[in-house]
């Protein structure tokens, strides 16, 4: 436990360079994806085992709160993927160590270039969904009632 506190505090306090921050971001993004993925997998399995629940959950996930989370997971996957490739390359090509800084910058740059338009697009999907709901007299913020999905029960 003390080592956890030490590491978390000093990973922020220690004046490391690009590699340290890339590592922090890699770790946090990995955990975030895993958190999402586990829910997602068990939930999607319901499409077979319990369609009613699945239908309810996808309706729930249309809520903008989940929408924002989804954009976050997108960010995490993109960053984690690019940085994972960077780490793999540096491990397999030891002599590329000298590009430590450049490679981190490239990873962040690539991430931003790809993520920003995607985020805008995803955000606009969310807005248009909400305005459609509003036009139909509902609200995208409403949490769907489980009973609405009874027709899928086997």
């Amino acid at each position, binding site marked *: 436990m003390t*080592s*956890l506190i*030490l*590491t978390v505090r*000093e*990973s922020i*306090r*220690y*004046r*490391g*360079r*690009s*590699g*340290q921050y890339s*590592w922090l971001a890699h770790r946090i993004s990995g955990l975030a994806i895993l958190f999402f993925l586990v829910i997602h997998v068990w939930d999607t399995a319901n499409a077979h085992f319990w369609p009613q629940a699945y239908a309810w959950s996808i309706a729930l996930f249309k809520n903008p709160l989940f929408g924002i989370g989804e954009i976050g997971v997108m960010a995490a996957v993109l960053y984690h993927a690019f940085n994972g490739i960077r*780490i793999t390359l*540096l*491990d*397999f*090509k*030891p*002599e590329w*160590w*000298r590009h*430590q800084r450049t490679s981190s910058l490239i990873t962040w740059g690539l991430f931003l270039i790809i993520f920003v338009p995607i985020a805008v697009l995803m955000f606009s999907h969310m807005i248009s969904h909400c305005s459609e709901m509003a036009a139909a007299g509902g609200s995208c913020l409403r949490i769907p009632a489980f009973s609405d999905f009874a027709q899928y029960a086997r």
Partner: protein
Amino acid sequence: MQAKLRIRRFNPETDKKPWWGEYTLEDVLRTDSVLDLLHRVKWEQDGTLTLRRSCAHGVCGSDAMRINGANSLACKTLVSTLAGKNSEMVKIQVEPILGLKVEKDLLVDMEPFFDHYRSVMPYFINETAVPADGRERLQSPEDRARFDDTTKCILCAACTSSCPSFWADGRYVGPAAIVQAHRFIFDSRDEGYDERLEVLADTFGVWRCRTIFNCTNACPREIKVTEAIADVKMAITSGKI
């Protein structure tokens, strides 16, 4: 110019907890090293300040510490690199290195570090007979060049104590021990590579390295530490050295 030092202090005989000591020095030169300033504090103001030092020019490895947030040797860090271009004042914060128990002020327990060093069998192993003519074993300059970089290590621990993996778990052998192992593994005359690689392929060996690069950036001898670690990872993965 003026220097304001903030030094992490701890005396096991009188203090329960570490504290910050603040010291002001006048007439500091840009060419002074942090070790010079620490000496001035010790000699002129407070003799209880405790640290290790010896050579004063970056080759004995005694005085690795954390200066303004990152590890380096006090004797090799000059005021000029810490002060603003034209500023008349410099602020310097000095702390002991991380991940090893603080014994007193800036001095830490180095035994765990040397234990890791010893665990990789840091000595030449070659049981075949020496040349019958009583002369040296031969080695090509190309073979000699392969491990040149890692022979420079002065065991200062700046790398190991900058590594987040080591902070998290002190059982990780750490970059310094891997650098020392590298020096022998890639020496064409040495025959102990199986055993050494076996140690490094274990749970607390090279796999604990997450390619963070703090070690490379901290090394005062400018050893390409992460490259050496990756060399070892590749040797284990490919079975070729």
